[in-house]
């Protein structure tokens, strides 16, 4: 028995309304705003020296953070799902912890460590290093915030996979590397890809934590989200939305890849 047709229609229309007003309109708004003053202004905003430096820095931070977090994610998922050990639940909670910590607090923690008056402050200045208000600080903060993403996607996939296929590979004489490459990786590739994409999206877009540790030095430690904030505060709305539209495009691509992956895994399990 299905519910009354009227209720069904009402629910569907409420959903349409909600999605359109809450998600679709804001998304379209970004692109409209970005192109409001014409393509020339749009291109100028993107090709501006400071914008380009912000894009470069964001890409650099992402290129460092994502591979490291991916390595971590695979390691953590492997240890947690294929072995039994004490304190597994605790480890899982610790991995999820960055989700429950405000990005602002994440940034604060690294300030407490590395600022000149911080715990490691004197050591760092003695060596002539700069971490806070510099690229390493931004990388550290981003790593903290994006730490759980890959592990979180992989753990359920590997858990569902079980151990038998890997045991079979070993029993047939494969070494650890062959087992991983030929058996584990093909089984987890979609989950891994999705985790990497989510991790990248967050790394590109992280604002609060980065905002604290970067010091917002224009042309030096400004990432894309920090750059649009500055533009916005200077009432350069078209330019702010132009840079924002680049990141939104990335977000839309992320969603497309996600839908595509889900479609693939769905059809391949059938």
């Amino acid at each position, binding site marked *: 028995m299905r519910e009354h047709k009227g209720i069904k229609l009402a629910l569907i229309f409420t959903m349409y309304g909600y999605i359109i007003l809450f998600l679709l309109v804001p998304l379209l708004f970004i692109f409209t705003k970005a192109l409001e003053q014409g393509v020339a202004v749009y291109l100028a905003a993107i090709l501006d020296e400071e914008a380009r430096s912000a894009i470069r820095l964001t890409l650099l931070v992402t290129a460092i953070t994502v591979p490291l977090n991916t390595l971590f994610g695979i390691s953590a998922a492997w240890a947690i799902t294929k072995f039994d050990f004490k304190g597994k639940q605790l480890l899982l909670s610790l991995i999820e912890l960055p989700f429950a910590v405000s990005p602002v607090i994440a940034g604060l923690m690294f300030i407490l460590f590395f600022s000149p008056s911080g715990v490691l402050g004197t050591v760092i200045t003695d060596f002539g290093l700069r971490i806070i208000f510099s690229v390493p600080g931004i990388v550290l903060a981003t790593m903290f915030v994006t730490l759980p993403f890959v592990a979180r996607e992989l753990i359920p996939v590997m858990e569902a996979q079980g151990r038998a296929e890997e045991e079979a590979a070993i029993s*047939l004489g*494969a070494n650890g590397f062959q087992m991983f490459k030929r058996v584990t990786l093909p089984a987890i590739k979609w989950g891994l890809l999705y985790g990497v994409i989510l991790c990248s999206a967050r790394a590109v877009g992280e604002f609060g934590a980065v905002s604290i540790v970067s010091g917002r030095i224009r042309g030096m430690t400004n990432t894309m989200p920090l750059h649009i904030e500055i533009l916005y505060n200077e009432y350069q709305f078209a330019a702010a939305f132009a840079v924002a539209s680049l990141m939104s495009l990335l977000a839309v691509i992320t969603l497309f890849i996600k839908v595509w992956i889900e479609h693939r895994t769905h059809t391949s399990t059938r």
Partner: protein
Amino acid sequence: MTIEIQNISKKYGNFQALHDINLHIPSGELVALLGPSGSGKTTLLRMIAGLESVEDGIILVDNENVASLHINQRDVGFVFQHYALFKHLTVFDNIAFGLQVRPKHKRPSAQTIAAKVDELLALVKLEGFAKRYPAQLSGGQRQRVALARALAVEPKILLLDEPFGALDAKVRKELRRWLRKLHNDIHVTTLFVTHDQEEALDVADRIVIMNKGKVEQVGAPAEVYESPVSPFVYDFLGNVNLFRGRVIDGQFSFSNQAETTNEAVGYVRPHHIKIEREKTSDAVISATITFIHTIGPIWHIEMRRDDDTYIEVELNKEEFLLLNLQVGENVYVSPKEMKVFIPEDFSI
């Protein structure tokens, strides 16, 4: 290749999975490890394979102690309970896997591998399935691919964990017969785990019956079925009726009351019971027929004793027609064959 298991014990935390197991498996035999779940049979199989570590005791395969060897040095073929086929690889690549992962200097050429896989596909009757994926196969076909994959590396011994557990009854029977035939052809020492007594009796040269981490009995199917050494084995291999009684001067006599002295239990198979209308001696038991049904040539008669325990009897068609029994009738039964166990010696 013989398998010799000496003083093997295994503990998981406080749980003693195996107690001091000793077992000899002659070369070329097909042996069933039979027991209920939790009896330790799968643990023992996995220890022989090297999937579980050996802390106490030794395992000799072909007179070589393998206990400390890693699984990939033991030359065992292992067939997993749910096959553990590589889902993303074709049947061909699944079977070829063990050859393809060999170090370069030991790896056969691509043509040799292909020829070997073709040969195995023919052996397991799956010619023409090489390009399929596991998801496109039936349960029985997957099981045969798993077997071919394990055989590809030419193992010294073949180990199968509940090989037919996940299949439906009809396929299971077919595959059983097929495994028997395959074993006759290749003659690799084979050990399989099962909880299904019929399967073990049907296929194996020799059955190892396990319970609570111990070996209860080892023997040929007829031997373990006809002369079980313990109540557990009696109970586990087929239906059985229990008669309480006591032993006096080496003689068993029935008694409805629980006895304080010389208590004993008689075990009688349903087809070892004689039914009579007249009371011919004191050594018979009175019972009322409550239910009669037939499956093919066997007639099952259920009856209730005066103390409200039930007796199950099996008769063949001639026996049944001769007696012409009716529900509600009072009859006298006596065991044609019985095995008596003293409870203190055994516990089920």
